[in-house]
């Protein structure tokens, strides 16, 4: 069920069952009412309720997978930028598998990393880590070498990451083999064997943002054709 909701609208809350309140909803501190604060499509499930909306500015939330650029290091802490002009977040040199005082990860300014947001309290500095806390192993996180990174809308990035059978990825797989990392901060890193394929994949994904899913195939084919692949 999805209907358009904008700030000021009242939302149908199921009084009987317990529902988790998700993004886009907020409890007013004065009236204790649940109000919508973003405009988007209301997703009203049995257990949870939230507003699905699109944006360009990433606001960190705990457990989000993100791609960041290292902007500097101070002692044991790296500063990482998740999106342009946003406050940078901190990544401890200890938040890597097998890290110790002697075994520091080798990150330069400008390195790309794939990480998980471990603490997202807006009052203090936001922290990210390159380690899977359940296993203590890298879990796919860490330094991203070579390849290319580009920006997409946040809603699109969410959709691409959470849907393992996403039609775009299925279509791209037929064209070439690639490595991909999708950050919920709207950044996608992609790497193939050849520069042209990398460019074609990134252009395809970006162009698919503004068309209906029925046209994905057509868009991907034109992008590859334009680059002579």
């Amino acid at each position, binding site marked *: 069920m999805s209907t358009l909701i904008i700030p000021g609208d009242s939302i149908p809350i199921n009084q009987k069952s317990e529902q988790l309140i998700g993004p886009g909803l907020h409890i007013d501190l004065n009236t204790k009412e649940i109000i919508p604060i973003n*405009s988007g499509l209301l997703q009203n499930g049995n257990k949870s309720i939230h507003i699905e909306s699109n944006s360009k500015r990433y606001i960190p939330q705990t457990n989000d997978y993100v791609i960041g650029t290292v902007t500097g290091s101070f002692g044991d802490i790296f500063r990482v930028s998740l999106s342009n002009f946003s406050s940078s977040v901190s990544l401890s040199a200890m938040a890597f598998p097998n890290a110790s005082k002697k075994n520091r990860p080798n990150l330069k300014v400008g390195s790309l990393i794939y990480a998980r947001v471990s603490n997202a309290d807006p009052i203090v500095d936001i922290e990210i880590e390159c380690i899977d806390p359940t296993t203590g192993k890298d879990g796919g996180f860490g330094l991203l070498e070579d390849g290319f990174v580009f920006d997409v809308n946040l809603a699109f990035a969410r959709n691409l990451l959470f849907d393992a059978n996403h039609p775009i990825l299925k279509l791209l797989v037929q064209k070439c083999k690639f490595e991909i990392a999708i950050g919920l901060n709207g950044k996608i890193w992609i790497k193939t064997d050849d520069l042209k394929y990398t460019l074609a994949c990134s252009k395809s994904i970006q162009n698919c943002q503004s068309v209906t899913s029925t046209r994905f195939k057509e868009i991907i084919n034109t992008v590859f054709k334009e680059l002579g692949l």
Partner: protein
Amino acid sequence: MSIQADTSILNRVDGSATLKSGETEIIVSVSGPIEAKPRQELPTTSALDIIIRPDIGISTTREKLLEDKLRQVLTPVIIGILYPRQLIQITIQVLQSGEDKEYTSKELSTIINATYLALIDSNIGLKVSFAAESFAISTDDEIITAPSRSQLKSSKSSHIVSYEISNGKATKLLFSDSIGTFSENQIYQILDLAATKVEETHQIFRKTIQDKIEKDFIWQL
């Protein structure tokens, strides 16, 4: 009066909207929440940086006054506590003023409306929707909604009224500003008229937002 609105038109900012209402055309951009400079930072809430730039010439005290009035409208509506220590930067560029420099009512009402759409586009948390309308009282005591440049010039007084809008209905007076001579009765008439007018405008905006959401999620279709 014709209203043309469009959102997500700029690429480098988080939210943007352009609004053409009659002779006035405004473009608004919103960036945020972004990193605030230490002197702007507020410990518990977000700082609001509003910049209004005129269509011709450099900004003067007139624009500063408009910035201040817009801040009065936005402060109670934006939920700042969600973004402590952050900055929300709103830049307004007047493309066509549609009124002489002595007046501000048409510009300000269009700015309020355009800023609403840009804030929605940027996905910044808002408590409630809002809309504004400009009015003028002519020399023969007739209330004119959204006056033209010449009507405004020959009017006795000009007014801006903005309401909070909940479920499509104007609920609470958010802002009202009047310049000129008018009676108490007339201002009440305008406030009543404004409530119905902003509801009409809001219907158009709802359609604009609907279009925007459809465009945002087009890949789902």
